[in-house]
């Protein structure tokens, strides 16, 4: 294994493009090192992105959006004074990952690129409409976060492509988001179901909504039928019931020791309801 510390994303991309064997990028290493130590994946080239200038920055953009460096750890997001005020759902999703120790290292981009359908950081990013900047042999392009995962452990990134930034849109007025997951314990477990909701209100009426489910299909899934159940409503009982039904209908989960198909499907509906209520209260400024 060769360990590289490129000074720029262009150089990181060049190393990855010319590598002949297995390549991994190293952000927080909380997936890469586990896979390395358990002999699941031993990269021939390991490219540490943490020496590239700017990767530790959380910066508000001119349009009110956010640019998050690819090496920003979960704890740094949680400690940020303003990010969580705009996007509490994104911050709480990231904050659920692992222990204090894991939070000191794990990154959102690593969570995304590891490609787990149960990744806790990703649903709220998709619900927010976030994108990543991808630097590759042919320059840089922006890709929606929703389009990055293509299956368990798989992403659409091509050989030589590295994510160089995470872009979160401006929060705007009267918006709120939330992320909830169910695990059998209270800490340190893999989501049985995760659900993110992001919405906007005009008065009491929901005008925009995105609902994203995790761990119930091969990839994290944005469910338009759930959004449709919310838009135009005041989140009354009928809307919640329709949301619940649409969430259950969108599930194609696995059956394993953490949860049966039936249980995961049921929990998806329950979490969708609960996350929608939190996001709604946040959009109306009634809850932080």
């Amino acid at each position: 294994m060769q360990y590289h510390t490129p000074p720029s994303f262009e150089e990181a991309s060049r190393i990855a493009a010319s590598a002949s064997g297995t390549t991994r990028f190293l952000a927080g290493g909380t997936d890469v090192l586990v896979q390395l130590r358990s002999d699941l994946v031993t990269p021939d080239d390991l490219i540490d992105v943490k020496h590239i200038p700017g990767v530790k920055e959380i910066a508000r953009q001119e349009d009110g959006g956010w640019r998050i460096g690819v090496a920003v750890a979960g704890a740094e997001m949680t400690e940020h004074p303003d990010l969580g005020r705009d996007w509490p759902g994104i911050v709480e999703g990231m904050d659920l990952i692992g222990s204090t120790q894991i939070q000191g290292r794990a990154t959102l981009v690593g969570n995304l690129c590891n490609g787990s359908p149960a990744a806790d950081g990703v649903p709220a990013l998709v619900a927010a409409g976030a994108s990543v900047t991808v630097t590759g042999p042919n320059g840089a392009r922006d890709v929606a976060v929703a389009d990055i995962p293509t299956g368990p452990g798989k992403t659409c990134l091509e050989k030589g492509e590295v994510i160089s930034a995470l872009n979160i849109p401006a929060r705007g007025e009267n918006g709120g988001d939330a992320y909830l997951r169910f695990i059998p314990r209270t800490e340190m477990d893999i989501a049985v179901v995760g659900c993110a909701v992001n919405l906007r209100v005009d008065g009491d009426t929901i005008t925009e909504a995105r609902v994203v489910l995790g761990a119930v299909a091969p990839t994290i899934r944005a469910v338009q039928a759930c959004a449709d159940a919310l838009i135009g409503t005041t989140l009354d009982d009928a809307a919640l019931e329709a949301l619940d039904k649409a969430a259950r209908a969108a599930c194609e989960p696995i059956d394993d020791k953490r949860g049966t198909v039936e249980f995961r499907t049921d929990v998806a509906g329950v979490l969708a309801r609960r996350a929608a209520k939190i996001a709604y209260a946040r959009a109306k400024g009634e809850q932080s």
Partner: protein
Amino acid sequence: MSKIHVTTKVNGDEVEYLCEPRETLLDCLRDHLDLTGAKEGCGTGDCGACSVTMDGRLVCSCLVLGAEAQGKEIATIEGMAEDGALHPLQRKFIEHAALQCGICTPGILVAAKSLLEKNPDPTETEMRYWLAGNLCRCTGYDKIIRAVMDAAAEMREAS
């Protein structure tokens, strides 16, 4: 395989070592620097027995490469007692019998110290969540929590 030369600070002292690219910081502390306080319980980030701080952040040293420590400041359990005087947390662990086999103890002490530096007056719930990544198979945790809360109270009085 070519070895990597690393210069880093451990408990305030400049140190250097040569490591394989795949060796973890935990391996380097234990095998190259003879600092065997940090333990390997799982090697996969689950147990916290290998906890150290790197540039002030609590991390699992089993999930950091030795090479990544270049230019960093590492703090381990070996730096906790000062001039032979035990840290209040260490004293309270003895007083409350907060350990049995002791494998988890260095990691828990390092983790608890890092919380108290950030928040000198944590609630028990905050403390339990902070330490959720530190597993103990012996004590049942209660004595650990009591020892840490007691140490925190003593440290607040002393400051």
